[in-house]
């Protein structure tokens, strides 16, 4: 019986999430709430992908927006240049381009560790930013890429706001499931091994450089999906989407949610987006609140939001 509770709860939660715009429609704030939820899910996808690096493999990347933005541009440009609105084409382009970019950068960056890895990923991301800024003919440069076409898929037209939300929510759930699968696989455990003790992993016969590179590419590809979904959502891509602020947003989402926990990055993204983009409508010092939340969590909750929940749960049960 107990073994069935968790999957059933997960299924119900997933169904509630996907159908949010429908069951909430009587509420007059439903549409705006849907918009906010959608951007939370996009940032959550980015954070989940980053946690593969930061949490699982112990690779603190501060340039993850590069792959997010590459995916956004790729989906936007593919739709425009190929004249097709096919979803698989757009997402395929996003995954392909961001994975290739991650492969190129990762091939160099994964040789470094710690702060050097952090700074190298930042440096390459800033170069990607510079390219996006300067290649105005392709990306729109500082003016941004406008009029991104929304996709269609086997008769589904995602020009409809509700349909688009379904798409983002389903994509989010698939990414979540994928990360869950990875974490419980041998591959996932090898990544954790990297973080815990890279030398031992090498002694055990693992090609650690290849292992890191594969994680980097995988994380880049997933971030690219997030980028594509954002491009579809707001129908615009700007250089902000490859900028350092976006990278930091993802990074703090991972840290505040709880590194290397499945749902941590998701909660982190929810908290960060809520304070930065929702709460700021009502108070002029939202950044201070965000900063204080970081400080309090770091001092009070060793394992982020998820860690705090675990400790509380354990106490309640005891």
């Amino acid at each position, binding site marked *: 019986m107990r073994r069935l509770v968790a999957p059933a709860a997960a299924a119900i939660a997933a169904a509630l999430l996907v159908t949010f715009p429908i069951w909430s429609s009587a509420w*007059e*704030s439903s*549409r*705006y709430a849907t*918009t*906010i939820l959608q*951007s939370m899910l996009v940032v959550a996808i980015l954070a989940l992908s980053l946690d593969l690096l930061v949490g699982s493999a112990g690779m603190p990347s501060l340039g993850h927006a590069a792959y997010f933005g590459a995916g956004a541009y790729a989906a936007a440009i593919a739709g425009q240049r190929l004249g097709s609105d096919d979803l698989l084409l757009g997402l395929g382009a996003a995954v392909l381009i961001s994975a290739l970019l991650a492969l190129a950068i990762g091939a160099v960056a994964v040789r470094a560790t710690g702060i050097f890895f952090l700074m190298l990923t930042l440096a390459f991301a800033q170069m990607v930013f510079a390219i996006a*800024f300067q290649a*105005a003919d392709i990306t*729109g*440069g*500082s*003016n*941004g*890429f*406008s*009029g991104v076409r929304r996709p269609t898929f086997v008769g589904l037209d995602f020009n409809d706001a509700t349909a688009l939300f379904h798409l983002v929510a389903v994509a989010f759930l698939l990414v979540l499931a994928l990360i869950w699968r990875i974490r419980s696989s041998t591959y996932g455990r090898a990544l954790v091994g990297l973080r815990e003790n890279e030398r031992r992993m090498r002694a055990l016969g693992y090609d650690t450089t290849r292992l890191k590179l594969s994680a980097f590419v995988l994380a880049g590809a997933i971030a690219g999906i997030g980028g594509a979904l*954002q491009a579809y959502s*707001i*129908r*615009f891509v*700007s*250089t*902000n*989407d490859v900028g350092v*602020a976006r990278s930091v947003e993802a990074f703090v989402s991972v840290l505040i949610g709880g590194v290397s926990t499945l749902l941590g990055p998701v909660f982190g993204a929810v908290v960060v987006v809520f304070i*930065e*983009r929702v709460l*700021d*409508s*009502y*108070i*002029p010092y939202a*950044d201070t609140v965000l900063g204080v939340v970081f400080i309090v969590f770091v001092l009070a909750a060793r394992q982020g939001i998820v860690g705090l929940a675990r400790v509380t749960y354990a106490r309640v049960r005891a």
Partner: protein
Amino acid sequence: MDENKGAVRRGYRLTRRQFLAASSAAAAIAACGPAATPAPSGAATGTATASPGPALKIGQLLPFTKVYAELGNSMKRATDLYVKQKGGKLANRPVTLIYEDEANDPVVGAQKTGKFIDQDRVDVMMGIVATPIAYAVRNAIDAAKLIFIETNAGGNALTRTTTNCTPSCKSKYIFRTSFSSYQISYPIGEYFATKKGVKEVFTFVADYGFGNESAADFTTGFTKGGGKITGSLKAPLGSADFLPYVTTLKGQQTKDIYSFFSGTDAINYIKAWTQLGMPAAGYKMNGAGFLTEQDVLKEVKEQANGAVTSLFWAVTLDNAENKAFVDAYQKEYSLLPDVFAVQAWDGMQAIDLALQATKGDTTNKDAFIAALENVKFKSPRGDFEFDKETHNPIQDMYIREVKVQGGQAVNTIVDKVARVIDPGK
């Protein structure tokens, strides 16, 4: 001068309190939520003696954080002042102002625009400082048939017909009370070649969409008038050190430099310009008006002496409306207004007059658009009207020169290019 600095801080505090007031109003709205769109007003609200009509909700998307924050504050001050002067009502409809921070990020701008459309259900939207954000929300505004008054961003494409609407294009729902890059760049180019007799110019602009547009439009105007561009240089936005650039300018022979910079960049540029003794070496600083706008001028003061720029307004502009505006603004906030305040002020004026024409009705969009198109008024900048074709303003461009008068550096009007119309169709 010191007194003025204190005043700036006082003015800021005031703004913050108002921000809180406006925010709590917004919070209240969010809490209750409009059960339906405001009831159509129609004829019932026509006269001043009638009981007040339904609330007029104006959503203002402005930067209140990041590098453009003070532009947002300035525009907010002007807006609040206008509403206050009208006793809190436009065309007998009590005004509710909802301010949102665009945080200089198109993603945030798009989300907040969604809030105005879906949550607040505003009657009119205004604001937006950065061009990319205006481009980002253009389609959403057009699709929602929301009347939007752009009060700063000057990207040419926002009021033009463009191929595939890239990077943006005009919309019947979008009006602009600021300017297009063309308007602040092309006329001064032509003026330099034809009237000022300048033969050669070197351009040095901020390397982003707007700076490049400004350089291109200046170049077109200048070369059409017979002038020659001898070279160009670009600096990224937010460049830390301007000495290397000014050293390069000094290392070439063309004495007249045309620049587009604003804010911190303009300040650092002008300071580096003075430090390297450019005026003594015979170099002349020229540019689009933001180079020496009030926010820059109050920091660099006489170091900008002699700079010639073009803009549609100057604090010294001698007309009754400007005098009244500057006086009222100074009285309210104890500081001088800047061009950003004027743009927001005129946005409010345009809405006010259009509302009077429709007797307060904003539900009939076509009638409201027609009313806006026909709005003509005396602005602090001079005669103001919209180009019916593009909804960009038709306005005079003033050639201004920074001079030190009574110990204060001010933009003085030296000439005027009348009725500049953006060539967009």
